[in-house]
């Protein structure tokens, strides 16, 4: 059973307000139909095809929708909708729809799932030609939300570039939308994506265990007001060995770096994400007593702050570093091309 997310409630309101009752209702009906088909038929069955993955079903999609809402709104009631108002009703329609579809390719296997959305899309929309614009947008959004370009680069959003993506004659801010989708998806991590029971009873395959464990300790928080993403890790050390603790910590550090990179990457393309200037991290180490369900906090590490601040002169970047990054700046090469004696 689906609980309507805040962004969906806002979508319904804004579609009717800006497009008029008739068109607004039609678009929202299309959205609900797609959601119904995916939530009932497709998303819950990803587990059958890929049983070891962390959750990619309806709960995950709801989580990504929730994250998108928090990325675009403020907690402070006096300016709550300031950022989201800059999107048109159709922008938000495409955003919500992209979120619904972004992971459906997993039903046909995890590998390159971002490029396997078309089948499912056609199933949901019955191949009707009126959805051609929408199909192009949704499949493109799903394609670039992860993975690599055809040329093998990770800069998938570059593919969208300055290309015009219309929907019913109106321009859609696809680049902004996919930036939000990517970041909201990266932030959709946490205990809700895994199962405590399966972890405790060793029913998760060894190769997936680390991902599930990571999900169980991760608690992200989106704070647009303070311009930060907070990652809180609560680690129960009761049954951990030195090796297992080292393993999970190392993996966590990698994921922190990845998330921070996603933050910078997404906001590079999606200007609405500009306020998110830093990633903050805290580790809380607990001893959890299963008999009386109590937690004893052993100690905490925090706040670790990764931010965008660059202090001139601090990084000691030399000219040679610039040249090694951009080979065209090689001085000898320039001089030889200029034929100067």
């Amino acid at each position, binding site marked *: 059973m689906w609980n309507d997310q805040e962004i969906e409630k806002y979508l319904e309101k804004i579609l009717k307000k800006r497009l008029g009752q008739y068109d607004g209702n039609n678009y929202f009906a299309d959205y609900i139909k797609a959601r119904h088909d995916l939530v009932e038929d497709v998303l819950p069955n990803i587990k059958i095809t890929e049983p070891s993955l962390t959750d990619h079903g309806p709960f995950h999609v709801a989580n990504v929708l929730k994250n998108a809402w928090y990325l675009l709104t403020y907690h402070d009631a006096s300016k709550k909708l300031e950022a989201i108002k800059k999107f048109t009703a159709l922008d938000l329609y495409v955003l919500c729809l992209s979120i619904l579809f972004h992971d459906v390719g997993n039903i046909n296997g995890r590998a390159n799932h971002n490029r396997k959305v078309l089948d499912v899309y056609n199933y949901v929309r019955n191949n009707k030609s009126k959805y051609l614009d929408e199909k192009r947008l949704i499949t493109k959004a799903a394609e670039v939300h992860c993975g690599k370009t055809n040329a093998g680069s990770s800069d998938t959003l570059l593919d969208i570039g300055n290309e015009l993506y219309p929907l019913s004659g109106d321009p859609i801010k696809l680049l902004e939308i996919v930036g939000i989708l990517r970041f909201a998806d990266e932030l959709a991590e946490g205990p809700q994506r895994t199962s405590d029971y399966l972890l405790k009873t060793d029913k998760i395959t060894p190769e997936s265990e680390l991902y599930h464990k990571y999900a169980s300790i991760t608690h992200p928080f989106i*704070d647009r007001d*303070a311009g930060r993403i*907070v990652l809180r890790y609560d680690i129960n050390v009761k049954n951990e060995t030195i090796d297992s603790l080292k393993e999970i910590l190392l993996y966590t550090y990698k994921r922190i770096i990845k998330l921070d990179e996603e933050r910078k990457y997404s906001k590079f393309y999606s200007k609405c994400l500009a306020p998110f200037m830093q990633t903050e991290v*805290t580790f*809380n180490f607990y001893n959890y007593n299963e008999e009386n369900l*109590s937690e004893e*906090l052993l*100690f*905490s590490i925090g*706040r670790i702050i990764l931010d965008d601040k660059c202090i001139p002169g601090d990084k000691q970047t030399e000219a040679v570093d610039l040249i090694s990054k951009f080979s065209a700046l090689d001085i000898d090469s320039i001089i030889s091309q200029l034929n100067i004696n």
Partner: protein
Amino acid sequence: MNNYINPFEGERANALSDDEVLQFYIEDNTYARFIRSKRNIFLVGERGCGKTMALRYNSFGVLCKKAKQDGQDIDFSTIGIHISGSSILHKQEYLLLVDDFRRSITCEHFLVLSIMWEIANSLCKATEIQDAIKQESDRLLQDFEYILGFELKKEYDFFTVVRNFTLHEARLTQNKINRYDSDEFYDNTMSFSSTIIPFIELIKSISIFNNSHFLLMIDDAQTMNEYQIKILNSWIAYRDHANLSFKVATTKVDRPKFITSTGGTILEGHDFTSIDMEKPFQNPDSDFYILAKKIVKKRLELIGLNNTEAEDFFPEHPNFTKDIEACKDFVREEAEDKYTDGANKKINDYIYKYARAKYYRDRLEKGKANMPPYCGFKMIVAVSTGIIRNLLEPCFFMFDLASSNKDIDIEKIDCSIQNQIIIEKSKELWTFINEGLDSSVENCSREQAKQISQLFNNLMILFRNRLKSHKSEPRAITFTVSQKTTHEKTYNQVKKLLDIARKSQILYTRTSRSKDDGKLETYYTPNRLLFPSLGLDPEGQHARASLKASDLWNAAERNTPIPYGDDNETVKQQTLFDNYE
């Protein structure tokens, strides 16, 4: 006869001298570890649970005295500054201003002055510091003048000058704002970043403080106004805590919200960590029981009873001990009949649940003449409900009564005295509930006082019924409230009453994980001192009753008995004191 000293003299922690804090405090490594860390900490617990003592013990002045006592060097690595109820902190002048922004900066100004005063006051007393800054006082004063933007009177050492300056500034601000014929605003307001941060950096330029971390320990945060709370939260959110961190003590009820001045939020587990100071107190192995023993033992040392254990000073009635054992034997036979496979755990659980229940049940049935004796250290710990002040208070009155009866030194408190005091205090608490809530508790109307009185009377009737006949958890005297989502309005009405009850300290809460779904739940425990005058068992058992919000509201509003779920019980209209009138 010795000069009278009552070792359980229970002054509020703020009124104790540094020496008395050192004398009375039982060090707890858990709290010290967190208080002395660089993390922002919220110490949470109801009044009397030991928050102020924990902060004061970790303050610079007290730890200096401790170091001298132990013959050690003063540790300058952490400098604890206790900030509590100073006259500057609670200034109300901001209320004279209409503009919200001006109110906010005025409140921050007074908060900054309070903190500066406390820092200066703490550091100006230590002679080691005086010696260290003798050479540097001029430089420090010059630098501080530059920071503030005006001249200081340089008659004394640096910290004394700063202390005097803050008082002077507070007065000037007060005078400016108070002038009824003027709309002028005080222009030299100070903020955390413009004053406290540079002040602490300046102190750290003194050699002995080079590596110091300042612990700004703010007490009774629940008494701060809304602007101060937002300001404090903004400071907690401040990213750089290398030089200072905040330790904030607050009650659970009226705990400040987490909103900052800019509308953001501070996050538990990230921007700060909460430490619940109310320990489990259910049995002699619990943390609170162990702490209570240590506290009493330390207090007894003040009157020369150096090797006396708490259980010996407050002995149990021998008949009580004998009768409980007899009940255990009786119930053991029942258990052995029931669990013929000899499962020891099941038999022991059975005895735990039903032995004491049988004891109290038998006495309830026999009526007033057979009230159980309320004595013994275990009993005193039980009626304290896990709150240190509630532990010390009856001990004080018991010792006082024992002293008035004797000409010789007291080596233990007679059971009759213990029983008398506990029953007296229990009755006083009931009088407070039935007659005094609205006149004593802020924001409690007469109607609410009546509702709370009816609610508590009906709760006790429920617990008595359970004790008499409940099949599985007869001694459960802790409850949770259900129907939070299905009967939201009723739930909120009940919650309001329960919050007033908590403020009045006739109800306490614990947060624990539900065994059903693992989610955090609030467990409500009535003040256990309410039970003795009704002949009920204040010890209870490790279980809780789930009560519906609608039933609790009916009990409060209409004085309707709370339905009792056992099939054989019929709900009767009865009064609480049926057996004892």
